[in-house]
């Protein structure tokens, strides 16, 4: 079971490395969109500082969604998914492996880019540590929830649009507590509660989402 998990993570990372474009596209989208905000709302440091946490989180949500529709699509088209759903490795474990690889190639680069962009938005330096921590706990949840959506829209035409309609509402709790944690840190308030709730979301998603994704994938290959 552990071997199956390792094998699929290694394979997906290798695929991402050879194809290359996905991670770069996600990070570029993240950086470009954040950079647009100073142009849109004006260069007043006070306003940018006030909205920085929200801007970073919202753009991270959108960026992490960009690559979701490809999570299962190529495996679905070339028949690999048929073989994966049959076992003997439990499909839920394979899904968890694919989500892990997806997070490593898209969530992790976002996490690394976030503090740099925070400087650009003039965020108070007191918030940087918590921003990274909140991203570290929050972005895997986004990948897990996104996987359910990606599995549900398999085979649908214009799946990408449908996917965002399905997934974005489910991202709201992570957004609320992620932003709240960073805002609290900037104002020098305790952030423990928000981070614990984000952690709770992550564990709930890790328990439920692979199972729901597996069910949706079984339906898709039928």
């Amino acid at each position: 079971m552990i071997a199956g998990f390792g094998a699929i993570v290694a394979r997906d990372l290798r695929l991402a490395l050879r194809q290359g474009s996905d991670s770069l596209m996600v990070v570029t989208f993240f950086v470009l969109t954040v950079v647009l905000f100073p142009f849109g709302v004006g260069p007043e440091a006070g306003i940018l500082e006030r909205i920085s946490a929200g801007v970073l989180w919202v753009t991270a949500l959108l960026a992490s969604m960009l690559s979701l529709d490809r999570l299962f699509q190529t495996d679905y088209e070339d028949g690999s998914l048929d073989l994966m759903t049959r076992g003997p490795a439990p499909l839920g474990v394979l899904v968890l492996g694919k989500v892990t690889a997806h997070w490593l190639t898209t969530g992790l680069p976002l996490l690394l880019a976030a503090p740099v962009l925070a400087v650009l938005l003039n965020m108070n330096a007191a918030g940087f540590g918590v921003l990274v921590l909140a991203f570290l706990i929050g972005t895997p949840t986004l990948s897990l929830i996104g996987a359910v959506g990606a599995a549900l829209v398999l085979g649908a035409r214009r799946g990408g649009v449908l996917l965002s309609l399905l997934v974005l509402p489910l991202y709201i709790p992570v957004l609320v507590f992620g932003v709240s944690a960073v805002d609290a840190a900037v104002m020098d308030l305790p952030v423990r509660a928000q981070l614990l709730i984000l952690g709770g979301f992550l564990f709930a998603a890790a328990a439920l989402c692979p199972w729901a994704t597996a069910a949706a994938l079984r339906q898709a290959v039928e």
Partner: protein
Amino acid sequence: MTDQAFDDAAEFAGRGLACIRGERIVFADLDFSLAPGEAILLLGPNGSGKSSLLRVMAGLLRPAAGALTWGGAPVAEDPEAHGGRSRYIGHHDAIKPVLTVRENVGFWSSLWSGDGSTATVQRALAAFGIAHLLDVPGRWLSAGQKRRVNLSRLLAAPAPLWLLDEPTTALDRATVAVVEGLIAEHRARGGMVVLSTHTDVALPGAKVLQMDDFTVPMDWAGLDAAEEALS
């Protein structure tokens, strides 16, 4: 790849199987049984349900009625165990264009049997005469080579039951003979094979399942009459 007999082989059977695709009954009331060492050849025109039956046998498609058993125990109770003891080769080759042949085959071999070593992959490829393609990326393979790489997974992760959906598509005559030889070897070790085909594949002593014997003719006249009565 070992030459030992399969000790986990047991009678694989289906009773009263039916399959519905869309709103059409593809086949109904289909029984089969397959003992270790035996083979079933699925014959029938396009759309007669050969692929659907193989997908039902593979556990990819739930039968609308009936059940599969393995050594008397229902397959539906433990589908993952069934995945471990059977290999399914479908219409798609499941080969990633950016991975080399070694990585493509090695991944499935390690997923299915926990092996995945280069030596195993190399032996499997050699059986199909494509050992020289080991480090070639999938995108450079021809259709026939892809099919051979796909089939080599059967040997890289041995399992007693092979479910082959038109395995000889895109293969030249010489390779079809290789496949026939490997199937005979597999059966000699107690393995089982279900194979659908349009071309000639020699399976000595195989049971033949004519799929059109199980198709249910659609009662269009009756349907029209029923619709008229309703409107």
